[in-house]
């Protein structure tokens, strides 16, 4: 019996103690009318057979394509020590740290993670993470709605459209009004956002760099929101935050991020890491777990889950959120990743991505009929208009092993010929050159 240690002798002894004649006798509470109609599952297989099958399935995926897709998920290099450390059984086979004395490793790591992400985003407080960047954004909106007791939410059209679609699903049973403010090309329409924020607005939401890769300063917008007593929420891309003016420096009240780029493989969409940070006065509105520092009976430093009065196991339907688990192991991966790179390493990674992206933009816009949409600064991602359908271009290039980007027509009207190109430090100048040549060959 795989993973079950009981021998027939053990079973006999245990049944004797229980006073039952057979194991089946333990299930008599489940009446005949409750029994399964069927249970037609395949027979169990050896570990070797399952591994072989999974290797076969793995080989049926083209993870070898040279990938210029970003759109919120990025192909960054992950140092091997991240895997080595986070695969220690004491970490990954542990439970939620409800018994803090037996979980100081997890708790101190989360405390350090909270410290690292607040520093990176320029905010005061963080929680121990939520599922992903999209749910983090939804939870940020709910924080603003609770804090302001208002229900109008102003969202820039340059915020990740996948997240905006998620927000629509989550809020369709709630009494919230969304105001979508379209961007101007690849840029956020800051003036239109300002005009849309009024005395009924709970929050204004922007992304930086925005979905088109443009980098913007929202300081004025956030000051205006503050004057209307509305809150400002930023969705950020953590690697770029190493070099950019932070959400905190712009005056944001809540900053969230998809943490995948900090040491998580792309893994076909998950598990990822929802980073949530806020100013100190917002911390009691924040959902999820939070670790705090304290003392033991001998005065030594230790860590515990704290501010639990916000959570479901205490407050039930009055909790700040239904979110219970966090992404503890992913948060630990992010922390180890940030420690291995350090201040210098993460800034250098970001700068390298920016340099390669600007090289790619230069090479691609040299092609006839290709123009850059971004008018101002951009980081490691940018949008180009092609003299042909973006989907066609992707189709033709991917047959040659290169996926040149994400087709923006999927989410934006009138952008069927626009390609969103992302460049990480893993893309070499040679790969960029070949991609430009291949694209030139089909235009």
């Amino acid at each position: 019996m795989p993973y079950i240690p009981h021998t027939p002798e053990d079973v006999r002894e245990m049944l004797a103690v229980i006073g039952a004649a057979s194991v089946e006798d333990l299930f008599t509470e489940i009446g005949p009318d409750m029994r399964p109609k069927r249970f037609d599952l395949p027979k169990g297989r050896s570990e070797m057979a399952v591994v072989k099958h999974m290797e076969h399935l793995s080989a049926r995926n083209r993870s070898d394509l040279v990938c210029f897709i970003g759109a919120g998920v990025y192909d960054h290099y992950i140092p091997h020590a991240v895997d080595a450390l986070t695969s220690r059984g004491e970490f990954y086979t542990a439970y939620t740290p409800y018994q803090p004395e037996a979980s100081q490793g997890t708790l101190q790591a989360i405390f350090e993670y909270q410290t690292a992400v607040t520093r990176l985003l320029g905010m005061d407080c963080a929680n121990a993470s939520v599922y992903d960047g999209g749910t983090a954004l939804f939870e940020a909106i709910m924080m603003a709605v609770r804090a302001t007791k208002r229900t109008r939410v102003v969202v820039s059209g340059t915020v990740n459209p996948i997240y905006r679609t998620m927000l629509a699903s989550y809020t369709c049973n709630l009494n919230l009004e969304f105001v979508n403010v379209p961007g101007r090309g690849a840029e956020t329409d800051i003036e239109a956002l300002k005009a849309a924020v009024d005395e009924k607005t709970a929050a204004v939401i922007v992304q930086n760099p925005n979905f088109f890769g443009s980098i913007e300063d929202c300081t004025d917008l956030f000051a205006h929101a503050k004057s209307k007593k509305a809150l400002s929420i930023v969705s950020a891309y953590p690697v770029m935050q190493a070099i950019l003016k932070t959400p905190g420096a712009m005056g944001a009240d809540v900053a969230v991020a998809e943490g995948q780029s900090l040491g998580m493989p792309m893994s076909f969409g998950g598990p990822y890491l929802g980073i949530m940070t806020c100013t100190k006065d917002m911390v009691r509105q924040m959902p999820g777990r939070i670790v705090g520092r304290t003392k033991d009976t001998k005065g030594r430093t230790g860590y515990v889950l704290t501010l639990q009065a916000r959570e479901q196991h205490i407050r039930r339907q009055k909790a700040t959120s239904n979110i219970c688990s966090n992404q503890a192991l992913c948060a630990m991966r992010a922390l180890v990743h940030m420690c291995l790179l350090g201040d210098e390493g993460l800034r250098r990674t970001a700068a390298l991505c920016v340099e390669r992206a600007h090289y790619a933009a230069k090479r691609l816009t040299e092609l006839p009929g290709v123009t850059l949409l971004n008018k101002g600064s951009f980081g490691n991602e940018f949008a180009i208009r092609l003299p042909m359908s973006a989907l066609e271009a992707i189709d033709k290039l991917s047959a040659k092993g290169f996926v040149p980007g994400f087709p923006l027509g999927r989410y934006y009207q009138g952008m069927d010929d626009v390609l969103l190109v992302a460049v990480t430090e893993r893309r070499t100048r040679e790969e960029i050159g070949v991609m430009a040549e291949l694209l030139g060959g089909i235009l």
Partner: protein
Amino acid sequence: MKTVFAKSRPGREGVWPEQPAQDVSAYIDPALLRGGAGTTGLPDLSELDTVRHFTELSRKNFGVDSNFYPLGSCTMKYNPKFTEYVAALPGFAGLHPVLPQLKGAGRFCQGALEVMHESERLLCEITGMAGFTLHPMAGAHGELTGVMLIAAYHRDKGNKKTKIICPDSAHGTNPASAALAGYEVVTIESKDGIVDPAVLRAALDDEVAALMMTCPNTLGLFERHLPEIVAALKEVDALLYYDGANLNAIMGKMRVGDAGFDVVHLNLHKTFGTPHGGGGPGSGPVGVSQRLLDYLPISRVVKLEDGQYFLDYDYPKSIGYVAPFYGNFGVVLKAYAYMLRLGREGLIRVSENAVLSANYLRKRLEDYLEIPYNRTCMHEFVASAVQQAAKGVRALDIAKALLDKGTHAPTIYFPLIVKECIMVEPTETESKETLDRFVDDLIEILTRAESDPASVQAAPTTLPVTRLDETLAARGMVLTDDM
């Protein structure tokens, strides 16, 4: 132990990427940048510094690999190692989630789509549901998705429904999820530890959208009035939701779909042996009966007649996106490999042996602790330390004393309806020797609670820290190293 920030020495080199040719201000307007070196506040360490730091932290942690973890309702079973290898295979780990959304959708990721399709099929067979979505990223996320599906069903039928009923033994996430989806929560009291049909009927009216149940429930008891409950709900067109936290007790013995449930969420990190990670990531797939199929989240993976898989977004009644992509795929991979490894007989044996172990512990402990509902239990049971508490040694003290024995404590903060509760779930993967040692340890602690209560109240004494001041943590609010 110092924090990693206190160990930082600016200029010390970790895993540095190559140096860009130009300063970033050559590309980005300097007004949009933060300052230079040191401004991120991240630490600078050597790789060995980092390795030592996290290795030292790992030694301050209990995990299933190192300690027995009989946490009720958490199903802390052994996590097979080969599934880690499977999830890290480059064809899975290196796959960008947008790939199947490009032209010729799916041709680059047939293997990954097959994993999703087959996982859904297996989960359907295990639960007797008509369809599954893998998108929810944790159990509570599955609950929210399930309640959103219930809301979509009633909206579509034109039903005016405002309330969801939760028994008082429910996990706190049940009422929280119902509230987050816009419902008023009605709590009903358990009778003899289970839902009483008469009490339920008194709470039922046309405005009730659903009843959320855990079965076996959090007291470890099977809800034996299920047929009557199903019938009562039908009369007012209310749906029945199954919280899958305790599925480990019933595989092959009951299928929730056959028993009349409409929606179920599973916790892959519990029943299907994926590691919990110290708090996550989890994965909370949701299954539905035939009448809710149309509302499942998009996308859905479909198998064509030629054996190819593709993602279908064309479901007009769908509740939409609950996740950016397809859920926590890496966790699903591990659960899929686990299901293939165990197969039909293996999964049945999981439940049989989990229930056997729990009843064995219950019988061995009944002379030492009060057991409020002392009848055949499922994969867990709840004991109570009320007698010990009357003399000053509380369930919390007993829990901490167990930590000194190298055993993680049972659940003691839950369920709220049992005073001084000690909820024990041994799982099927612990040997009889481990179970016996647990009983011996507990008896020793309970004996000491009589003879030397102070020594139990002082526990733990052998761990890196003694008992921690939670009030100080909440009052002081030191949440980062900078505070």
